[in-house]
């Protein structure tokens, strides 16, 4: 038996996958989900072999949902029109179905996945997610997990980011959250906005700076509105000055 979960906010879109799957008796749909939150819960509860995932969904999109799952199952994406998503798929051989799709196309996708599974080909979702991170949704917010809860942080609410081993600590006014991404990822993601990497371990929201003080030789201290004091490295100071137009 192959366990699968359908995640799409449109009931009819799920029903068509259900209909096509009837020709594949070895597949069992263990759950249908209407949004990413349900999707995460269902995946954790059932550990499916493969999921059918829509991109544009309420609250968190399909990519954001995948980011929050520690060991994501194989994914066959289903989407209607999303330039960023399609770009992400095309560059990273994961199978995807463009709505409306035919039975033949659907069968081909399933067959492809079955072949990959039998030859133990692991599809790397990591680079796919990196490409998808350029989508407009990703530039507005960061989605994190806090215990069993999911928190959506609008990017302007971020005060600063701190490196913590394999994670990045996201500091906001209402708390600190962990995200398993690299500082380089965030540096790139936030570069177009009011954020500057002032130090190997810190990226700050420049809007919240109240003061920059000299500190020891070649280094500075930046003081945020909440009184937080963070070190600025020599190269960080150059970037900071540039961002502030000094």
């Amino acid at each position, binding site marked *: 038996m192959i366990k699968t979960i359908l995640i799409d906010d449109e009931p009819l879109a799920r029903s068509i996958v259900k209909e096509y799957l009837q020709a594949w008796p070895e597949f069992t749909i263990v759950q249908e989900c209407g949004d990413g939150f349900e999707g995460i819960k269902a995946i954790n509860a059932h550990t499916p072999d493969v999921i059918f995932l829509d991109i544009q969904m309420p609250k968190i999109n399909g990519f954001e949902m995948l980011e929050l799952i520690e060991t994501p199952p194989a994914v066959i994406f289903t989407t209607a029109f999303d330039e960023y998503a399609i770009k992400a798929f095309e560059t990273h051989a994961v199978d995807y179905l463009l*709505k*409306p799709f035919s039975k033949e196309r659907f069968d081909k996708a399933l067959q492809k996945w079955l072949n990959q599974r039998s030859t133990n080909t692991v599809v790397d979702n990591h680079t796919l997610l990196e490409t998808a991170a350029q989508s407009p949704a990703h530039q507005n917010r960061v989605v994190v997990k806090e215990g069993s809860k999911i928190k959506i942080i609008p990017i302007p609410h971020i005060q600063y980011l701190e490196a913590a081993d394999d994670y990045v600590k996201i500091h906001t006014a209402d708390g600190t959250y962990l995200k398993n991404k690299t500082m380089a990822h965030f540096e790139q993601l936030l570069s177009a906005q009011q954020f500057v990497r002032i130090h190997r371990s810190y990226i700050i929201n420049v809007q919240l700076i109240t003061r920059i003080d000299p500190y020891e030789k070649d280094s500075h201290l930046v003081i945020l509105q909440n009184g937080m004091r963070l070190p600025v490295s020599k190269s960080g100071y150059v970037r900071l000055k540039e961002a502030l137009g000094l």
Partner: protein
Amino acid sequence: MKPAFSDSSFYRSFLTWWLVCAIIHVAVIYNEPYGILLCVTDSIVSNSLLAASCLLIINNMRYYLPRQEKYWYILVISTVLGVICMLVSQWLLMLIGSSTPVYAAFVKDSSTIRFAFDTLLVGFIAMFGLLWYTQREQTQAARRQADAEKMTRDAELFRLREQLQPHFLFNSLNSISALTRSEPEKARHMIQQLSDFLRGTLRKEQKQWVPLQEELADLQLYLEIEKVRFGHRLQTNIICSDEACKLNIPALLLQPVVENAIKFGLYDTTDTVNIELQAREEKEALIVSVSNPFDPETSVAGKGTGFGLASVQRRLFLLFARADLVQTHTDNTTFTTTLIIPQIHDKDHTDR
């Protein structure tokens, strides 16, 4: 504008020309009685003055390029500079060569030819500068025009694509595809609705004014399709007073507002979404407000203005020259967009 003639290659060739001129000058005026030293001094003095005049005129053109009367300008400026060059060099050379009377006489006699030569050369440089700068200006103007045209084209393409609403279209087609097996009648009905809706979008050139009633009927088509897609999650409530229904509204103005509300509502919450549209008459204006639920915790402030609303705002601004006709209001978990449509328009008037 980048300072012209500022690169080193220009100065190198300028210096080379200057040297060539100076050497020719020495060769031409060399005469036993003055001695070579005087001839070289003469050449350096005259040619330096000439070079200074040329640089002056070229730099001057950086800031002032004559539009009309450009040939008179060149004639006058080269004559003036020619006279100045000649007088200054004569005065300097007389001073230097005062101990050699033969040479002093020569300087005096050659003043006409010196003046002619200076004027010609300065005139030539001025002409050259004029052509160079004019040509550069034209290239820049052409590039600006090409850029502007490209922007217009891009905007038009973007508008066409937006009008097609690919996301809505493909998802609707997918819903129809799902219905064909299970509920063929419903599928056919949806195809008809989608066709009517698309026809309506294509027909109305965003130019005419239509009664609100008509606009609401088209909106209803759109909402019906969306309801098939989202099932019970989407609910709508339209309240329109009888007087308000008879008032006029620019065609296709409401749809982007409602679309924005639906997107905002459906993608920002996971519960049932109720979109409410209210229309009423107030002080000779039609007031339409559209509200949707949202999650204040996860919405970025200001983001709610939405992309769709920007175009609505722009259209109303073009029609009435007022920027306050689209208003947004957030109240706890409800986001409301209010449109004010003055009813004082000339019916034949069209925007765009």
